[in-house]
């Protein structure tokens, strides 16, 4: 894998869902490539196919047609176990609703992906502490998520997504439930950490504040990535050293 190999390369992705007696085309012939360190925003109205594309890129859903290369490897035909292991090691998720495990402390939530990956306890402890420091939640390490504000919870989710040094971060509306000030902090955090870790980040958002902070923006409508969509390089992709 060369330095210029895209982290993900989606080619001709299509996906349709059964809806009642009919069939809805959620994604049609979508293609995109995402180099290391780049933050790409997918914008568009509800039902435009953003989440479907995110789900396929995050290996939590399968396309009907198309080819998916992750770090140059074709992962389109992998079985569920291999996809799970790939998600475990290479993909971080940030959800709109935070999706933290309520019975685990902040530190345990961040530790969970490392535990799953089979990293030893000492290394896990070091990396969790480092990540807590980065997201500014060291004092809240032993608190439960329900004792945190929305912004703090999303920071925990960001830390959980990035603690395992993933190749790809999938963020679905990460600022939708946050006030503008907090959203701004979270956007900065995601951007800085992704750049620092060299992780490619694919973000689905309605939030202009977020999309304007991304390196590139793709608009979607009715399952298509619009050819005349604003294609903006807002910032040069920062490739991890």
């Amino acid at each position, binding site marked *: 894998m060369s330095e210029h190999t895209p982290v993900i390369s989606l080619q001709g992705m299509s996906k349709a869902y059964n809806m009642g007696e009919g069939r809805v085309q959620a994604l049609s012939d979508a293609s995109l490539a995402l180099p290391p360190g780049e933050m790409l925003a997918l914008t568009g109205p509800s039902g435009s196919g953003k989440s479907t594309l995110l789900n396929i890129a995050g290996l939590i*859903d399968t396309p009907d047609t198309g080819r998916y290369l992750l770090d140059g490897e074709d992962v389109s035909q992998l079985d569920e176990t291999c996809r*799970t292991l790939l998600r*475990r090691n290479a993909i971080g998720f940030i*959800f709109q609703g935070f999706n933290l495990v309520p*019975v685990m402390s902040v530190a345990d939530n961040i530790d969970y*992906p490392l535990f799953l*990956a089979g990293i030893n306890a000492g290394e896990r402890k070091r990396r969790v502490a480092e990540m807590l420091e980065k997201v500014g939640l060291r004092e809240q390490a032993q608190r439960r998520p329900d004792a945190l504000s929305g912004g703090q919870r999303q920071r925990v989710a960001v830390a959980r997504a990035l603690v395992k040094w993933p190749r790809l971060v999938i963020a679905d509306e990460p600022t939708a439930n946050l006030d503008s000030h907090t959203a701004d902090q979270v956007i900065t955090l995601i951007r800085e950490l992704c750049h620092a870790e060299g992780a490619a980040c694919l973000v689905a958002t309605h939030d202009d504040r977020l999309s304007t902070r991304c390196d590139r923006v793709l608009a979607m409508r009715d399952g298509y990535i619009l050819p005349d969509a604003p294609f903006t390089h807002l910032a040069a992709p920062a490739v991890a050293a």
Partner: protein
Amino acid sequence: MKWFKFAVLNTLRNRRRSATTLLIAALGTAAILLAAGFAEYTYQGLAESAARDAGHLVVARSDYFQHEEDTPLQYGIDNYPALRSRLLADPDVRYLLPRIQFSGLVSNGDKSVIMMATGIDPDSEFLIKGPFLNMKEGSLLSSAKSDTPQILVGEALAKTLKVHPGSGLTLLASTTDGALNALDVQVRGTFSTGVPEYDKRALYTDLETAQRMLVTQKISQLGVYLSDMKLADDDRARIEATAGKGFTTQTWRDQAFFYKSVRELYNRIFGALGGIIAIIVLFVIANAMSMSIIERTREIGTLRALGTLPQQLTRIFAMEGAVLGGAGALVGAVLALIVSVILLYAGIQMPPPPGRSVGYPLSVSINPLIYALVVLGVVVLATLCATLVSRRSARKPIVEALNHV
């Protein structure tokens, strides 16, 4: 350990539901343990009673156990002293109780009634077996010589014949040659065995009187008492070999028809009861787990997205089931232990069972092996139940799980 901690924390999410589930598991476990303990106590009591009555082993002529006798003691043991010497040489043999079983009529002059008589060695019999007869009037037999042979009469038989200690009766029975013999005896006491039907016919006399009655030196059988009842099965073959050719040995279990039938009946009753309780407990655990899993569908989707394998999720739910079942089973075991100890000291009497005239103490055995098996059984069943309930949810499509409302 992390998985286990996670499972424990999950059971604490909805404390009221978990507490209810745990309580039902505890009550179910306690009910099973108490029922099993009661059955065990009953079995022990009946086994000890059977072994005490017949002997840990019973030695007789082979034909005695296989054929009906045409004349009294047709298959009796004719050289008892020699047999006694041989058997007492065995290191495990503690006591020998010779017995003569015979039947005939007992008469007060006006009325004759069928009797089932047993000739015993009075001193040894009452010494070894303890107070196995509930004396109603008079006193026990003794080997002391008296002018008139002495007998003990069943309470109902005494009532039928209108006799009391000191009254005279006549025994009529066939001798070993088939001739009719009669013997005047004196009632020394009346007793109750607790079985009214038996008390209408039962009569005890000493061995010498029975032999005089039957005109023989034979005995019917020999009860062998070992140093430990548990040795009966192991020692059986050796004792039989020591007795010599032509003798057969049975264990107390072979003789204990009442014990066997009660055990069979109780096993079925308490087995069915235990099965029903176990099913109820399992349904409660399954229901609690199902609700918990449905509530956590989005979390399941999240954990799957983070890279948790379905089998790892199933393992977490299985552990939750084990934690709930295990905690419930332990609480139930403690509860059963407390109730058992209370019953031990409370001295509550059960009413007489059908066919009996005396009740028995309500007591429950505390058997560590049964406790361990029941607790383990509840844990295993709860674990299996949680595993089955969670399998489908753990394999639900991630997108579907994440969008669950």
